[in-house]
């Protein structure tokens, strides 16, 4: 273990809301019990004022940083979280939990329904971003934390970072919102829809009832392939693959992959199937599509009672969540006279930049957190 590494970390599990104390979801449906998979890094101070909640993207999980025993690669945001990194575990206590509706340790459609003793499948209730946040709040309460120093996330995690200070205004001091939108545009819904259709068109999907049988692997892989195209920029794809061929000779039989980009997408799709549940993909993409800050008035009204400070980060080549969408959010936050900073990072990495473009993000995040930390401790 080197100086900047967290070393081996472990996933923990928190279970609550056992019947008859089920959580009431936004839809009005009840869900219980609920298990949340989570990890923590760093040390919680005695006054519990240094806690940061990291919010993962669509297919992310609780394993944000460090290594699991036997892992080939570290957690998904290991470049940003660790000793001396942007989310400095020498200073802050970092929590990351898998969302409800997920399939990586938290309760979701692949979990067993305590009533029927069978996996929920499509009997699982509709999940929203608000429900994900409500469940995370239960975890934070369980950890004895009254107020988070910061919440931070990109993409779907960014939606939760927007929602947290709105839903629990007194429980968050600051929020970092990265590469997201405050309501999905028609294009964003459309891209999710083709992903969902790919799964549902797979005969093995079987109306969501495939647990213990053949899984809809080809449909799920296809939806992941579509997703991956939207996460990369044109420039990056061209640089990475161009028109490079798999084999030297250009003769491929029939329609088997010929170009490297085809192979790459196939690899991405196939490896995704190993770790993700198709029904979870349907539920979570729907949660993202449903999120709309203008549901009950203007986006400005949504921030009326908010007093957290914000940092908004977007990326120049992200065509899935273009910068102008966060600029609209910036405008709404400013209209409420809330302290907000923003930066558009110039990068070729597209939407994936929030995972890989750490140079600019690190500078912005560490400075912003430092300030939030000082303000909480009354040093400014």
């Amino acid at each position, binding site marked *: 273990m080197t100086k900047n590494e967290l070393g081996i970390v472990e996933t923990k599990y928190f279970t609550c809301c056992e019947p008859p104390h089920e959580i009431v979801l936004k839809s009005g449906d009840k869900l219980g019990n609920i298990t949340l998979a989570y990890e923590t890094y760093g040390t919680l101070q005695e006054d519990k004022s240094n806690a940061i909640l990291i919010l993962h993207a669509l297919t992310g999980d609780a394993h944000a940083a460090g290594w699991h025993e036997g892992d080939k690669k570290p957690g998904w945001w290991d470049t940003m979280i660790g000793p001396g990194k942007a989310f400095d575990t020498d200073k802050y206590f970092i929590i990351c939990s898998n969302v409800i509706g997920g399939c990586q340790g938290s309760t979701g459609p692949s979990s067993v329904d305590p009533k029927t003793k069978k996996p929920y499948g499509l009997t699982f209730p509709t999940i929203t971003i608000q429900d994900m946040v409500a469940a995370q709040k239960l975890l934070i309460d369980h950890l004895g934390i009254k107020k988070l120093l910061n919440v931070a996330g990109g993409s779907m995690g960014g939606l939760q970072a927007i929602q947290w200070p709105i839903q629990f205004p007194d429980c968050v001091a600051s929020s970092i919102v990265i590469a997201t939108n405050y309501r999905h545009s028609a294009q964003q819904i459309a891209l999710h829809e083709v992903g969902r259709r790919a799964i549902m068109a797979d005969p093995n999907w079987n109306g969501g009832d495939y647990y213990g049988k053949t899984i809809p692997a080809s449909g799920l892989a296809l939806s992941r392939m579509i997703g991956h195209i939207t996460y990369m920029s044109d420039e990056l794809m061209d640089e990475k693959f161009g028109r490079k061929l798999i084999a030297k000779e250009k003769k491929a039989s029939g329609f088997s992959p010929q170009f490297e980009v085809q192979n790459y997408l196939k690899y991405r799709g196939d490896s995704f199937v190993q770790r993700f549940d198709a029904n979870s993909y349907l539920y979570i993409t729907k949660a993202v599509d449903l999120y709309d800050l203008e549901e009950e008035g203007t986006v400005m009204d949504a921030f009326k009672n908010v007093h957290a400070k914000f940092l908004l980060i977007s990326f120049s080549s992200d065509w899935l969540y273009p910068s102008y969408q966060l600029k609209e959010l910036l405008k709404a936050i400013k209209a409420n006279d809330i302290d907000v*900073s923003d930066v558009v990072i110039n990068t070729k990495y597209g939407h994936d930049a929030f995972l890989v473009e750490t140079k600019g993000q690190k500078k912005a995040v560490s400075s912003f957190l430092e300030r939030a930390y000082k303000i909480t401790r009354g040093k400014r």
Partner: protein
Amino acid sequence: MTFKENKGIRLDYKVIMDLIEPQSRILDLGCGDGELLCLLQDKKFCRVEGIEINEESVYKCLEKELTVCHEDINVALANYPNHRFDYVILNESIQEVLQLKKTILETLRIGKQVIVGVPNFCQLFARLQLFFKGKVPVTQELPHQWYDTPNLRFFSLKDFRNFCRESQITIVKERDLGLSREVHFLPNILAHFGVFVLKK
């Protein structure tokens, strides 16, 4: 502009600080690395924020723990309601602004007063170069060659005063600067820089 520093503070910053009431609310348009904002925050106890178009400068502002938005002045102003700020600062930025009149009127909408710092392109050295050499001047105020200048406009302190009069903008105060001290005599010829406090 390259001002000589007086006790470690640039002359234009010193004059601007002088013009600002303590504990005011400030927006600096084109705030660069945030030096002036830091001074106003620490020494004048102002509540400050900045707008800056250069990404690296935005990081420097954040590092100084300032509130800053990475935006173009030409589009950022619409985000603010009327009279949000006590002062809006446009120091050494208007010569690069596209729609000058529109921008200044917008700043006067969101700020109770506006402080504008402008280089004097008709300072004596420029006049001499133009007259004797017959060349477009390259001076302190105009350090760039004509073919690679970022400046969209070239004007004198007198031009700016006339512009304010014609636009029905009141000049509350004017301070004229040399490179190391203020100028009190024939500013349109001798001053390198002017600082104006404007009001609608």
